Structures are given as C-alpha cells and as structure tokens.
C-alpha cells in the first residue's frame, strides 16, 4: 500500500489532483460555493466552515475522486507489476484492501488540502477568526472520510469487475453517484445517507428553527448570489452523538466489505481470464506456426504504386473504423433506434429527450479520442508517420463529428423539415463541440476518464436538467450556439497544441 501510494504521489497527475482540490477550496473561500438553510446561513466560524467544506467534498469530490483514483489496478496490469505481485504469496483480499487503502490515502491527501483551505476560508470571511480544531475537523473525519473510504473501495470493485473496468464503469459511477446524492435527500433521510447531507441539514435546521421559528426550509449548497437577504445565526456544530458517530463509522466497515467482495472478482492478473482469453481452437494454430516456411532467396517487396496525393479520406476512414470496431451489434441497433426516434417523436421530445440521449450514446466512442495512442502504446508508431498533427489528428476529430452527426442525424432531418434553422445551428455546433471536447481532454490528460466525467456532468446539468447556460446542443431552446462555437474553436486549438506538445516534449 505504501509503495502504491508513493508511486502515485510522485506522478504529475497527483499534483493536478491537489490543484483541483485547492481549486474547490478556493471556490469555497471566495464565497462562490455557499451553504444556506432556507434564507439563513451560519457565521463563518470553525464549525460552519468545516461542515460547509466537508459537504463540498462529499458532493463534488465523491464524483471526481472516483475518476482520480480509478486506475491503480489497471496500472499494475499494464506495467506488468501485477504479474510479479501475483507470483508472490500476497492474497487477493490483501491486494484489494491494500488498493482501497492506497486510494483512500490519495483522497485523504485531497481532504488535507481542503482542510487547510477551510482555515483560509474562515480567516478570509473574518466573522470569527478563532480556529477550533474539533468543530473544524470533525466533519472531515466523520462526514468526508467515510465517504472517501467508500469511494476508494467502490473504485477497486469497479476495477476488478471486467465490464466495469473501462468506460462503461465510468458512466455507471456517474449514475450511481447521482442516485447516492439525490435519493436520500428526496426521501428526507429515510434511506441511508452516505453523503451526510440530511444529517447536517437536520442539525442545522433544528438550530435555525429554534432561532427564527419553525418553517419549511430548503438546504442549498452551491452558488448563491442574494447574500444581503441572508439571516445569519451561529451554528454550534454537529452534535456528534454516539449513534451518529457509529452510523458514520459503519461506512468504513462497508468499505472493507466491498474491498473483500472485490477480491472475489479479482483475476489476480491472469491473462487467461477475462476478455483476452483465446478460444481453444487457437492453440492448434500456434502449433502449426512452429513450422516456419523458409524465406525466399531474395526478399523483394512489390513496389507501391503512387495514388492520390490527398490521403485524408483514407486516414479518416481508418480512424472511423478504429473508433467503431469495438462496438457490439446492439450498440448500432440502439443508435439506429435513436435516429428513428429523432424522425418520429413529437417535436418537444425530439429536442429535450431524443437529442440528449442520441449524444450520450456514443460517449465511449468519443472518449478514447486523442488518448488511444497513450493507452495502447502506439504513439511512437503513429508519430513517426507523416503529418501526425496535420492529417491524423483532424481525421480523429472528423470521425467523432461523423459519429455525432450520424446518431443525431434523425433529429437534424427533423429540424430541417420543420425549417427550424436556429435549432439546426445549435445541433451543428453541438456535433462539433462534443468531439472537440473529447479530443482536447483526451490529448491533454492521456486518458478517457476526464472526458467521460466532464461530459457526463455537463450533459446531466445542461441538456438533461435544462440549464440554458450549459445547454451545448440546444435542448432548452435557450442555449447560446455562438458561445459554444467559440468554446469549440478553443478546444480544437487546445487539442492541436496538445498534440504538438506531445510530439516535442522530450
């Protein structure tokens, strides 16, 4: 576990992780993220700031933390270290528990950064500069840390179950996270609340009710602009009764349990298990291979006949084939269904449901864009071929645009037939924006996870929850296509710059 943790903290990506945590902390400290009970807020003392930051951790870091730490088992698999470990007496439960511990250590380091920012937040607010350690840190230890333990364990579980190991697992986590966040709040604490939101809300509401009278108050965590209307009260901090403490600590036990379940699925890096298992008949072929035909006396390769000088269509076709090769038949069937739905559904449904669905379906086709070379180690082969920036990268991008246009094609035809050119313009910008985002994030992060996380979040908050500011595909009818076109241009430029940097960084 220690070696794994050291390996991870010495990576550049860990620094970026801390920067992300610091960014979240900064948003809290400058008041961009606030916590209100109805129209009331607490004095920014240690208790309030500690709870506020812990809630930010549980709401946001629980989502992103998964994507941050989810690759530790995969890294062992890819580097071959896994096979060395598998040949030692180390047991499977010990391995999965160790990985959970190492994941938790990385997430705890992010918590540490945010704890420092909590103190900064308290001092910046200047309402009560006296730092009291237990009220400040107890939300981190009892609210945030158990949540992070569960995230750490679930990450290992996802990495050990073959079909959850890749992009499908990243998508599944997003929806699981959404459910974990929303169901306890919707059920007002009747279902187990891992985030701890209802626990904190009940405690705070009790004090607000005592101070300002009983009322039906909502709990808001996020950007709040009408600061002058706030009723300010001093919150005494969480009343950590033994039952509450035990309730929170039980999540650690669940994390251990999940790690042990992960051990059941863990293949101990045996390549004969899982996706790469060869059919039995293949062995016979290898036996045949042992009889090697002799080389001809002189090796001559047929001279190549020169073709057209314009080779872009060939590269584009190759990139398109590569992107779509792994998709099973049912993926195409569902994509065809979405095209038909776009052509036949009622107009409002087309805009608000069919198009968002059509442009989430190819998520795993887009997410390897710009990082496939890094993931599979083909970079040196491709970057020593002519025009890796001028030809291959635009071909990857164009392949992504074609996929977007094809799956969303039914909707486009519908807009065209209805003469709704503003919707068609938004559609066109969306079809350009998504591959640009995938390519830029893929090139710069070297992984598909960042795009999967960012795009899912954007898609969920923007088109699905009809937030006009984040509606990049025109689902609300109030989006800003010109703005998204500008963003698209910037992202495409970032992808080009990133690929250039990759080529010349040594």
């Amino acid at each position, binding site marked *: 576990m220690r070696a794994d943790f050291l390996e991870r903290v010495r990576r550049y990506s860990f620094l970026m992780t801390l920067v992300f945590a610091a960014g979240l902390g900064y948003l809290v400290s400058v008041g961009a993220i606030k916590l209100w009970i109805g129209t009331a807020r607490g004095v920014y003392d240690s208790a309030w700031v500690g709870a506020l930051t812990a809630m930010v951790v549980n709401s946001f870091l629980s989502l992103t933390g998964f994507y941050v730490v989810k690759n530790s088992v995969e890294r062992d698999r890819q580097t071959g270290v896994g096979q060395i470990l598998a040949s030692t007496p180390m047991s499977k439960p010990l391995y999965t528990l160790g990985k959970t511990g190492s994941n938790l250590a990385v997430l705890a380091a992010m918590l540490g950064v945010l704890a420092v920012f909590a103190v900064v937040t308290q001092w910046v607010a200047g309402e009560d500069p006296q730092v009291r350690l237990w009220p400040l840190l107890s939300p981190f230890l009892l609210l945030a840390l158990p949540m992070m333990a569960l995230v750490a364990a679930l990450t290992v579980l996802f990495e050990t179950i073959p079909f959850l190991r890749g992009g499908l697992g990243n998508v599944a986590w997003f929806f699981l996270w959404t459910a974990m966040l929303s169901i306890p709040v919707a059920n007002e604490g009747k279902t187990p609340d891992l985030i701890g939101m209802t626990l904190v809300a009940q405690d705070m509401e009790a004090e607000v009710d005592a101070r300002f009278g009983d009322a039906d108050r909502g709990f808001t965590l996020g950007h709040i602009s009408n600061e002058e209307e706030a009723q300010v009260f001093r919150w005494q901090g969480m009343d950590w009764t033994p039952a509450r403490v035990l309730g929170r600590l039980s999540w650690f036990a669940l994390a251990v349990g999940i790690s042990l379940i992960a051990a059941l699925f863990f293949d101990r890096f045996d390549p004969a298990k899982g996706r790469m298992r060869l059919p039995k008949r293949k062995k016979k072929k290898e036996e045949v291979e042992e009889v090697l035909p002799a080389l001809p006396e002189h090796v001559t390769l047929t001279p190549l*006949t020169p*073709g057209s000088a314009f080779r872009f269509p060939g590269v584009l076709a190759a990139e398109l*084939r590569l992107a779509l*090769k*792994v998709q099973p038949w049912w993926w195409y069937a569902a994509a065809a269904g979405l095209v038909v739905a776009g052509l036949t559904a009622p107009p409002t449904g087309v805009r608000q449901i069919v198009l968002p669905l059509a442009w989430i379906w190819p998520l795993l086709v887009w997410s390897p864009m710009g990082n496939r070379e890094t993931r599979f180690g*083909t970079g*040196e082969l491709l*970057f*020593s071929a002519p025009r890796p920036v001028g030809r291959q990268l635009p071909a990857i991008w164009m392949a992504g645009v074609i996929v977007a246009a094809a799956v969303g094609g039914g909707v486009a035809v519908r807009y065209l037939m209805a003469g709704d050119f503003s919707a068609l313009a938004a559609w066109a910008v969306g079809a350009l924006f998504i591959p640009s985002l995938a390519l830029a994030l893929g090139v710069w992060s070297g992984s598909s996870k960042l795009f999967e996380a960012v795009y899912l979040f954007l898609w969920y908050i923007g088109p699905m929850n009809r937030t006009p500011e984040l509606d990049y595909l025109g689902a609300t009818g109030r989006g800003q296509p010109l703005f998204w076109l500008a963003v698209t241009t910037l992202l495409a430029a970032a992808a080009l710059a990133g690929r250039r940097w990759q080529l010349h960084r040594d």
Partner: protein
Amino acid sequence: MKLTIEGVGKRYRGDFWGLRGFSLELGPGVLGLLGPNGAGKSTLMRILATITRPTEGRAAWDGADIVAEPDRLRAVLGYLPQDFGVYPNLNAVEFLEYMAAVKGLPARAARGRIDELLTLVNLTEARKRPLGGYSGGMRQRIGIAQALLNDPKLLIVDEPTVGLDPEERVRFRNLLSELGGERIVILSTHIVSDVEATANGIAIVDRGRLLAHAAPEELLRQVEGRVWEWVLPSADLPAARERWKIGSTVRRADGVHARVVSEEPPPGAKPLPPSLEDAYLHVLEAHRGERMVAA
C-alpha cells in the same frame, strides 16, 4: 539516399546527456548499433525516427533537416520502436490497414503489401485473430510488418529480436540482410550475434558517445592475435577477471574455458580466431580504461 548525423546530442532533465556529439554518415546497407543498456542507442533511434528532438547538432535525410522538415523523412521511414503497443481488438490485417492509412498509403496498394508482409513475417495463419491474443513474438512480427508497409528507404529497428524464438530470430536477421541491399537499415541491439549476421557497418556506443564506426572486418582486425582460450579452475575465475579482460566463459569437465582479449596470453592459453563480441568488448574496455586514466 543519405543520412547525415552531425554532432547530435540530447539532454534530459537533471542535466543528463543521453547522447552527446554523435556524428555519422550513412548510405545503403545495414548499420549495427551496438552498446550496453543505457548507452544511448534508443535515444539516437528516436531522434532519427523524428520522435525526439535533439538538443544540439543536426540530422539530415538527403540534405533535409529532419527537425525542420520531419515529413520528408517520415514518408520513407519504417520504424520499429523498442516498446510499442497494438490495438488489441483489431486483427493483423485491420491493424496493418490502419497503419497503412496513417502512413498515407493508397488502400489498394496497401492491401497487396499487407498480404505480402504477413507471409514474410509468417502471420498468414493468424491474420484474422485479434492482436490482444498474440504472443510477444507474434506481436514483434506485426511490428516488423508495419515498419515495412511503406517500402521504407530508411528502416530503423530498435531491439527487434527481443521476444523472438531462435528460429524466428535467424529468419528476421536474414530478412534484414536482404532488405539492407537497397535501403539504409539501422539495427540497434546489444546482441552481438544479431549484428554479426546482418551488418556491413558497426557503430559502438557507450554512455552517449560514439566509440567506433567501422566495418566488421576492421573491428576484427583490431583484435587479431589478441584472443585466447584459457582453461582454468572455476574457483580461480573471480581473481582472473580482476586481472584479464575476459569475455564469454563455458564450463566444462576440465574447468572453465574463458575467452580472453589481451596483448599477451595468460599462462597456458591457446590463440583463438577473434569474434565480433571480442572486438566489441575490446573497444568498450579500451575506452573505459582511457576514461579512467583521464579521470
């Protein structure tokens, strides 16, 4: 067809020079690049394959600077890196079709070439199997095939025989010899027998410096009359190593048969015809000795 390398150097982070002051001029033929692990061979390979930019110096293909105009070289380059990956869900034909498209080959010409290459690297039987199920040797052969796709004028192969079984290794060495007739082939390895079998020129590299560049015969001449077979008890071997330049050793019933490179024979040693391995060790040791004296 000419590759010119003039004073090329590469500095990595921490002021570490992986390569320094490297100069060479190459025409058609096979150049064996020999050196111990970490000598700078792969750094040179990556610079010549336009993957890495040199910190100093200049490399040119037919007079065109490969940093300023990399695509002129890339169009005629075949490159097999030391470590490379493949797309596991593609089969051999699909992968080579993809690589052919990326290299800018017309589709029809590529199809014929792929069939030819799969026969050449003996993967016709396995052509429709996903690459994810290939053994290390089979994967290496796919790497060789992709390097030959565009009928390269410059073929750079970095440790190409790693993972190949002895029979495949011999076959690949023959292939390189054949190909070297009409193009420049640079073969980087630390396996001297691979170079011995294929190269008509040898460059010996150590600690980022070019120590020698000569024909194999020239290198062999340098150790002519200086190679001895010495039979000694195995218990005496550690002490003997302290005093003599000992290459390969073979244990037999009568003791250890050691190859010694030295002006004077050890007591009781018999002369042997020199091998390229003797010449390689002699060059390495001579330069290391000079460096120690200088220090």
